[in-house]
């Protein structure tokens, strides 16, 4: 619970803080469903549910895990079939980086290819594996925090993470990306 009274300005601060988490929640949605449009819909729904929660939110704790948990729960209960999700969602690497103008074309092409390779590898993982990888490598969550979001034990998270990484490495082997990265 909040340790200080909520003034209008602190309410506004909280509101902004929650909205600032939107990109991270959206990216979590992408890790779960892959389709960017569906991820956006789910993210929107998660936010609306969060705003409509009947119980007061514990403001002394980080809100991101709660939003991620709501989203994960939504994915588990949403009606659209995952089979219909387009597997040909545009490759993330196709969007130009902020410093694209300064980058030589060959390097930019290599970067795009690398991102597509990683995205293709991620697409072949189960949603649970992608989610755990995102929470760890994307958001830097601890195993304990990941366990809370995905509702599993810490040991399970440890094992899942290990398997997911092993799988990604296997998928990247042969593309030369893993060796290049290790150098």
């Amino acid at each position, binding site marked *: 619970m909040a340790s200080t009274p909520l003034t209008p300005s602190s*309410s506004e601060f909280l509101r902004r803080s929650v909205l600032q988490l939107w990109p991270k929640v*959206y990216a979590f949605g992408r890790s779960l469903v892959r389709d960017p449009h569906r991820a956006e819909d789910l993210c929107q729904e998660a936010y609306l549910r969060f705003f409509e929660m009947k119980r007061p*939110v514990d403001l002394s704790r980080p809100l991101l895990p709660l939003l991620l948990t709501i989203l994960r729960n939504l994915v588990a209960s949403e009606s659209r079939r995952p089979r219909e999700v387009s597997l040909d969602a545009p490759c993330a690497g196709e969007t130009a980086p902020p410093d694209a103008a300064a980058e030589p074309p060959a390097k930019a092409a290599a970067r795009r290819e690398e*991102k597509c390779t990683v995205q293709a590898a991620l697409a072949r993982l189960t949603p649970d594996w992608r989610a755990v990888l995102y929470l760890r490598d994307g958001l830097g969550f601890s195993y304990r925090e990941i366990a809370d979001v995905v509702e599993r034990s810490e040991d399970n998270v440890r094992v899942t993470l290990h398997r997911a990484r092993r799988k990604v490495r296997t998928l*990247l082997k042969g593309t030369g990306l893993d060796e290049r*990265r290790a150098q």
Partner: protein
Amino acid sequence: MNACDKARQRLDAYIDNELDDAARAEVALHVEGCKACHQELRELEGMRDSLKEQFTTWIAEAPTPPPTVLDRSHTWPPAALAATPPHSPARARSKTRSIVMKSLTGIAAILLLTLTIYFLIPGEQVIASPAELIQRAAEKYLSWKDVELEISVHLKGMEFLARLSEEDDLDPEDLAGKLRILMLAPHYVLANPEGSKKGFPLVDGLFGFDGNDIWTYDAEKKVVHLGDADSESSSFSFTYSTSTTEHSMKFKKDTNFMQFLSWDFMKQLDDNTENLEIIEVTGPYDSRVERRVFEVHRSLDDDETDEGTKKEKSFLEKMFWTRSRITIDPEEGLVERYELDLKLSFISLLSFKVEVVDVNQGYDVEYFHWSAHVPEGTSVIDAPPPAQNEEGEEAGEEESAGE
């Protein structure tokens, strides 16, 4: 296990900063002196960086929150939260007053509650017992026209996995299988298996049954076989095999698929065993979203033979026990999740989970028609299953499903 194996097992936790100081120092020392492990660590870090970059891209690609979210956010945090911060200085100043007010409010609430129970809803308890809650939820469940469930079965057990891994280089995770069940009326379902090809050979196919007939979809030949159920007997079997084992599932005709969620079914279990105990538990997440969770503990004790005498089990057999967990949304009266664990002592051997994916979304017939899940160009062998619905409601739907 040699030093390299030991170090490599900990590399994930090492790069994730999840090792204690001693273990961390041990790994660091080994990696420093071992070229192969050092290379392994570099590769792992390189891959992590690639993933991190990818995830950063996803975050950067996030669209701006839509107007609906922005509009709704203006009423958050709710005024009530702002008005009554629990540990505020104002609250501390008026502590005594608060206690008096709280007591008075509490007494008033109890009085109001008692009067409400007594006068307005005679015979009904405000706080339902587990039995009533489960029963009510199950009844509501069965009254729905369409329900979508997701069933996942996870086979565990060290020996079992080790054996399979040894023979087939099978990743234990691959054994996890999921069946997505689309349910139209209680008896008419389609299952769309997902997950591992190794664990469930029908991963690219389908099987369905309506309580009387079963049909399967052969993904390789793109053919749907209908009427595979044995029409003479009162039950039919569905068999699938992995590379090492064969499994058989038996469905009783006209079995109400959701019966295992009903309290009656629990009672049946109760009749068959002396050790059925139901307790209410809540997890941090569940309490946050106001769910009630019940656990049914049942040890697999001595079996009763047909003659009514007890057949004593071996010590090992007595180590088996099951735990079911039922998650209910009391507001909606909805059983959201049903989990069953079969354990040998503390080792989980099999876990079975049914999760409600969706209900009453007004699906049209095509949604349940197998062709909605089967690629175009699929041939159909035999006629579609006849309409079996007592009210005849689904007859037309099934007809169109067979077109």
